[in-house]
């Protein structure tokens, strides 16, 4: 163990990468950028999809909440890795024209990115939908009824009364989902996207310095996640409604 720890060689990050793109440090940072880009894009999709589905689930009637529930159950219960393979390998095969264009017309990196964004976005969207639904439901029925009684229509009730408070309440769980999407983005490495965990595997593979690679990549994921947490705290503080649930006094 001692010899092994003493054997770590951090200079490896300053040696030229196997693909001639620069040093291995740069090589890892390229992965870092893709991880950020993938996570943020997928998060935007997840937030939009999750908000829509979450709101649908709280609508009156049976049909719209039903559709929302089916969506959540399907996307939440199929394993992420399977979903990714469906998006990347299966879907292009079953859509004749578009699928062939996707496979052969697009740059492979773009294909992997698109599949990764769709997969992570729709998967996390199902989870965000549950947060949104619970946020809205936590507000009590009185608010909705009062809004309607004032003559607002349903869209206005959501837009002006329910959602502004519901979103504030669910900032902490949404932060967790964002952190999850960053960590889950590593699944994109399985279809070849050169994101952070893929680059670290490549680094290990070509230099055989696995431990240095794993340690560096852990620190980089940590860096992203800590940043997200700090930003989220900030957002929570700025948007905090005095005296309301969930916020500090």
């Amino acid at each position, binding site marked *: 163990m001692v010899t092994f720890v003493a054997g770590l060689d951090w200079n490896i990050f300053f040696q030229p990468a196997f693909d001639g793109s620069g040093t291995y440090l740069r090589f890892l940072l390229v992965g870092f950028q893709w991880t950020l880009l993938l996570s943020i894009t997928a998060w935007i999709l997840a937030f939009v999809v999750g908000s829509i589905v979450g709101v649908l689930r709280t609508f009156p009637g049976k049909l719209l909440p039903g559709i929302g529930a089916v969506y959540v159950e399907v996307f939440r219960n199929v394993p992420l890795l399977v979903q990714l393979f469906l998006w990347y390998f299966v879907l292009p095969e079953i859509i004749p024209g578009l699928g062939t264009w996707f496979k052969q017309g697009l740059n492979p990196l773009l*294909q992997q990115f698109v599949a990764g964004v769709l997969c992570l976005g729709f998967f996390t969207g199902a989870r965000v939908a549950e947060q949104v639904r619970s946020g809205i439901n936590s507000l009590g029925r009185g608010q909705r009824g009062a809004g309607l009684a004032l003559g607002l229509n349903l869209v206005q009730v959501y837009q002006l009364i329910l959602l502004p408070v519901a979103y504030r309440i669910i900032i902490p769980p949404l932060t967790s989902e964002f952190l999850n999407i960053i960590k889950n983005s590593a699944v994109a490495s399985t279809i070849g996207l050169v994101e952070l965990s893929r680059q670290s595997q490549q680094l290990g593979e070509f230099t*055989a310095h696995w431990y240095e690679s794993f340690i560096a990549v852990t620190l980089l994921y940590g860096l992203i996640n800590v940043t997200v947490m700090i930003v989220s705290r900030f957002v929570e503080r700025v948007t905090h409604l005095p005296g309301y649930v969930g916020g500090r006094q």
Partner: protein
Amino acid sequence: MEELKAKTFDSSKVCTPTHTAMNTLTMKNYVAAVIGLCLVAPVPRAWTADELTGTLKKIKDAGFISVGHRESSIPFSYYDDKNEVVGYSQELVMMVVDAVKKKLNLPNLAVKLIPVTSQNRIPLIQNGTIDIESGSTTNNVERQQQVSFSDTMFIIGTRLLVKKDSGIKDFPDLKGKNVVVTAGTTSERLIREMNEKNSMGMNIISAKDHGESFLTLQSGRAAAFMLDDALLAGERAKARKPDDWVIVGTPQSKEAYGMMMRKGDDQFKKLADETIAKAETSGEAAKLYQKWFQSPIPPKGLNLDLVLSNDMKELFKNPNDKAFQ
């Protein structure tokens, strides 16, 4: 050593600020000795012919040997239709296991088969989870800094698998095309270098494993799949219509496959080397070659039909553990 320990147990004395220069010296010696011990610990103290060291001692003490194998490196190391590990490398490593049994005089030594991937095989060797890995691992200089390699089992050339009617005959035909490689392979390095150097404008896709690379090729995402020729033949054997695919192109590199062991374990390496060398010079390895590369193999009964290369003939005459890179 004993004296040193006895002295340092009385730490109150050694550590008080009033102690003499002599004590300080002892402390220094102690620290030096501890560091020395830690560095020296894995290395055997005495080199007698019979004393077991390193991996062999570990195997004897534990009562089992852990063999790392691959799950789909056809025909080197993979699961057949009965979910048993089979293949050319697997048969060779079982010969080494037999040699270990004989050497330790443990005919009933338990054998643990542990599936490994190209990502975890080196860490698993290093942390002791597996004692020896036998699959399709290239012996190269970078890896030699982390692990040690046995005598070479197989020599491959890196070539291309393409659709028969694709019109691709050799590497220059790949200009502007999508090419798939398995992440972390030498082929990936070579093709990226070639792309850069000759400005060929290829899009290089690196898939997770050989199966996924072939899927990428079959689904039309890539026009060619670059890999070790023997492994390409193995992937072709898994295709729905193997005849649709051909292996083409000038070999871009040669690679020597060896078994992997922990670094600096000369006793264990010597045993593995002797076993492999004996198999190669006695004609046993040539028979294994015929069995796995020139006859129908599981799971589909397909014949890989790979000619014994001159490099392999030379290797069987003169077994060695030389790396090509």
